[in-house]
């Protein structure tokens, strides 16, 4: 196992589909971690400069109509985006495992019931459900994070189930069972570790979805008023678009694009490495 994971790690590093997204994503990662040191102003502070100033040396990405510094807002927006997407995706993965593992392991009736439920959730338009939940339960950032996590699990559950179904028939699992390992041990030390890797591309897509939803909800001005978000900057800019305020639109939008784009390349790259045969057709 050790040798295998080392080789896998080296494969990951040598794959340009993994390196490229990391490089283009790194500015956003750095902004999210070191926001306090990078941003010259507090992101929610208004009147730090003249309203609607184009980018200058003092205001690298210009200012909005209230005189807020867009550069600081974009920097802090990276943190919000990363917080919401990571936590909500971790939640979605957890629920996906909780539903997918028993379905794949016990099969039969349990599988049938759990998968019907999953199918129902899959066919509900997720964005409308999110808006509905935000309207009913409020839109502070923690609620929004939980809501995105609660809506995102069905695809992950389906992949986990399929993976466990196919793994439990494989020789190495049969061998462990024949050696007298308990079902729990078989599950946790043999089957589960092997479901994580094939799950990674789907996790990347879920992260991208979370980034999109977080900024989207804020773009509709339904988000948390106490937290800066890329979507909120875009919403502000959309109200002054007739004044030709391109800077309020280009910069936060590019940040969203870079984030989702690198997650998508990463998803493609990882599935290529895990599954060289089928991924070749992509």
């Amino acid at each position, binding site marked *: 196992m050790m040798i295998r994971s080392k080789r896998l790690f080296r494969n990951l590093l040598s794959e340009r589909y993994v390196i490229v997204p990391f490089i283009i994503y790194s500015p956003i990662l750095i902004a999210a971690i070191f926001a306090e040191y990078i941003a010259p102003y507090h992101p929610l502070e208004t009147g730090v400069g003249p309203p609607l100033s184009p980018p200058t040396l003092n205001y690298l990405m210009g200012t909005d109509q209230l005189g807020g510094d867009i550069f600081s807002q974009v920097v802090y927006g990276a943190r919000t985006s990363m917080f919401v997407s990571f936590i909500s995706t971790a939640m979605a993965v957890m629920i996906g495992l909780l539903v997918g593992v028993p379905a794949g392991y016990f099969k039969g009736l349990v599988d049938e019931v759990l998968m019907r439920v999953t199918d129902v959730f899959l*066919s509900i338009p997720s964005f409308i459900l999110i*808006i509905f939940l935000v309207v009913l339960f409020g839109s502070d950032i923690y609620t929004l994070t939980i809501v995105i996590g609660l809506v995102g699990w069905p695809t992950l559950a389906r992949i986990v189930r399929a993976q466990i179904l196919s793994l439990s028939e494989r020789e190495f699992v049969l061998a462990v069972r024949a050696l007298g390992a308990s079902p729990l041990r078989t599950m946790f030390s043999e089957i589960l570790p092997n479901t994580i890797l094939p799950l990674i591309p789907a996790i990347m897509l879920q992260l991208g979805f979370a980034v999109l939803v977080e900024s989207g909800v804020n773009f*509709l001005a339904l988000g948390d008023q106490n937290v800066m978000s890329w*979507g909120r900057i*875009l919403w502000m800019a959309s109200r002054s*678009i007739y004044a030709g305020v391109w800077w309020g*639109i280009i910069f936060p*939008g590019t940040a969203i*694009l870079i984030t989702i784009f690198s997650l998508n390349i990463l998803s493609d790259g990882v599935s290529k490495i895990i599954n060289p045969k089928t991924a070749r057709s*992509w």
Partner: protein
Amino acid sequence: MWAELAKRAFTSLAVVLIVVIMSFSLIHLAPGDPAMLMAGEAASPEYVETVRKQYGLDKPVYEQLAIYLSTLASGNLGYSITYGRPVLIVILERLPQTILLVGTSILLSFAIGVILGILAAKKAYSYLDVFINTVVLIMFSIPAFWLGLMLILVFALYIPIFPVGGMIDIGISEDPFAISLSVLHHLVLPTITLSTFFLATYTRLTRAGMIEALGMNYVLLARAKGIPNSRILRHHVLKNALLPLITVLAIQLGLMVGGVVFTETVFSWPGVGSLLVQAVYYRDYPLVTGIFIFTSAAVSLANFVADLVYFMIDPRIRIKVSV
């Protein structure tokens, strides 16, 4: 085959029923008075009391659910205070505009996506292929609301060749031709916005399907028989490569709903998506709930129709299922 179709129909109905029960439970779980949440924030205290009586909100929960279900079953989605009309009518008035936008976008993205996919697959792993793949992956990653804003900025403000928003010019003549022309003119930017993501999906799927089909034995046989390449492509490869697109098209309708909300909002297109955002701003809860139930029902109906179409055009499934 009929048994399978019945099962699918049953699933679609179950989705609608579960969505209804879900919205009922959520309204009761949410902080605040359920009667207020079913009347809307703009409602007068008297009207809230009327709603409380009408839905039996002073009775036990299971009786409330029964009343709620039977009210909905009769086609009554509630009453919108802000629009002063039943929710269903408000939604149906907005529906044709949304169908126009979604329909045009699906046709456009399907047509261009398939062509790009074929191009990429024919020259698989060449520079053209890599180029198409990269462009498509970028398109796949652009949020609809940002793309919409950028298009407005460039093609409505800097180079003003398209309108900023709306669906029709004000003060236009009654002439149907002039009206359609004006609508088409307003349709261009929203359609591009909504199509982009789906164009990317179709390109990728067509390419994957083509490459898989090209490696099949029947293609080898056709080649061995001396059938010209273009004919093989049209009659053997494309048919099989395009089949999965139908299912994906239906599944993606659910995703498309999100894109519709953003696109319609950015371009003030008078459809169901912008209606939802307005309903949220006015805290018109019955309208929000109604749109949630309505779109879920519409998407699951579309899924069922896609299954039907798939059954009709793919003989393999028909035979396999009936055996």
